[in-house]
């Protein structure tokens, strides 16, 4: 157990493992995502109330799902950075923060596009929308603080503190805005309950959620590898690796 943990701390070991994992993540993820979206957009039955406009959930729900879990993953990594000073955890936080921000934006954007025909407005100061917007701000804060501190070690720890403070605040923000104002329907999809929609709708949704998770895994590996190459540029194994690849 501890050995694996120590290995995880080694960027070189991770780099190798990631290279092996990435094709799987990419191709399986892409296959599931494409299947889910094509099925959802093209073949799933129409909603009796919303018609075709509901189909945006096949993009909206996966993005929103992931936007939130990326922040939680970042918080776990932040804790690891603070407690064990593991370099890779910080590499992870740096690599995925922009991805999380983009996913949050995508969730907000698709929500707005769906809101126009359904609620009759692009934006409304509703609890769910507002707390997603604040999540976006938190991502921006993490990125801004990370960019502002030049020293790698203290930058890593400062970002970790910020991410953790943010994660304490997320439930508070969520409930405060929910208490304040709400229009958004409750979660469409819960892992613990039987979905309230027919299988032709939720199976493609599940496919696209899982597919996006895998694609995210691939993207995280790719971005982490890049970050590792930048940070470890002076080590011998990176030099050998770069030379082995030709140029």
């Amino acid at each position, binding site marked *: 157990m501890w050995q694996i943990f120590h290995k995880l701390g080694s960027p070189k070991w991770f780099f190798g493992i990631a290279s092996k994992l990435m094709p799987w993540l990419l191709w399986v993820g892409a296959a599931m995502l494409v299947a889910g979206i094509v099925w959802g957009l093209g073949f799933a039955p129409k909603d009796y109330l919303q018609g075709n406009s509901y189909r945006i959930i096949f993009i909206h729900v996966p993005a929103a799902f992931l936007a939130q879990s990326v922040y939680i993953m970042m918080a776990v990594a932040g804790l690891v950075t603070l407690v064990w000073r593991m370099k890779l955890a910080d590499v992870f936080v740096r690599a995925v923060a922009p991805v999380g921000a983009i996913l949050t934006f995508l969730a907000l954007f698709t929500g707005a596009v769906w809101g126009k025909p359904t609620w009759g407005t692009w934006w409304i100061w509703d609890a769910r929308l507002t707390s997603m917007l604040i999540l976006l701000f938190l991502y921006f*804060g993490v990125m*801004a*603080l990370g960019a*502002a501190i030049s020293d790698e*070690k203290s930058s890593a*720890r*400062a970002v970790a*503190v910020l991410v953790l403070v943010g994660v304490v605040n997320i439930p508070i*923000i969520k409930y405060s805005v929910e*208490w304040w104002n709400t229009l958004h329907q409750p979660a469409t999809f819960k892992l613990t309950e039987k979905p309230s929609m027919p299988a032709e709708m939720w199976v493609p949704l599940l496919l696209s959620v899982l597919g996006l998770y895998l694609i995210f895994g691939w993207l995280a590996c790719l971005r982490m590898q890049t970050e590792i190459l930048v940070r470890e540029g002076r080590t011998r194994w990176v030099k050998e690796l770069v030379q082995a690849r030709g140029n």
Partner: protein
Amino acid sequence: MATEPVIGLRSPDLSVGTVTAMKAVFVRDLKTAFRQPQDLLNPLLFFVMVVTLFPLGVSPEVSFLQQAGSGILWVAALLSVLLSLDHLYRHDFDDGTLEQLVLQPQPLFLLVLAKSLAHWVLTGLPLVLLTPVLGIMVHMEGNSVVVLCLTLLIGTPVLSLIGSIGAALTLGLRSAGVLLSLLIIPLYIPVLIFGTGTVTAAAEGAPVEAQLALMGAFLVLALTLAPFASAAALRISLSNS
């Protein structure tokens, strides 16, 4: 800049109690602040000026101001606390006092708590005292003004405490001011929502005890958790410089 030595700062005597040390930090912060009265006045002036902008910029009508008054005052108070946060650690950081503070045998988070409370006494409390005047200027009713003062009384210490984390994280950075706001504003939102929500409920004649109790819960949470995060952030920032 005159610096009042903290008790126990230079002596290796570890027997100074934690409470004594906290008191010393608190009193020292007040003393050094009162030697620069202009710095104390600035956030208050800012508060008054921001409130003035709304009747001029949006509408001076009584009906609008009555409705928006609590929100305007809350946002203005929030911004002026934000503005004053830079002072919380900056002077002590520049003259090295902060490093001495970190080296104290007493737990750093308690000293940080003392500093945050001093910051509140210097900025939050004057804002609360000034609120009735501005409340009347934006045509709020007497009852609403009282509730507004109460919410600010409970809410501004939360702002100081959360803000201390941001101030500690951005210590010694180049564009600290803007960055501080970026980091802290999202964390201020719940306090703002409950603060203004309570006043709105009071204006509609609804009971406000529950909301005030919730704000009290925020305060307790911030009192217990924020100093830890702030102390951790201070250590990181100091190891950076």
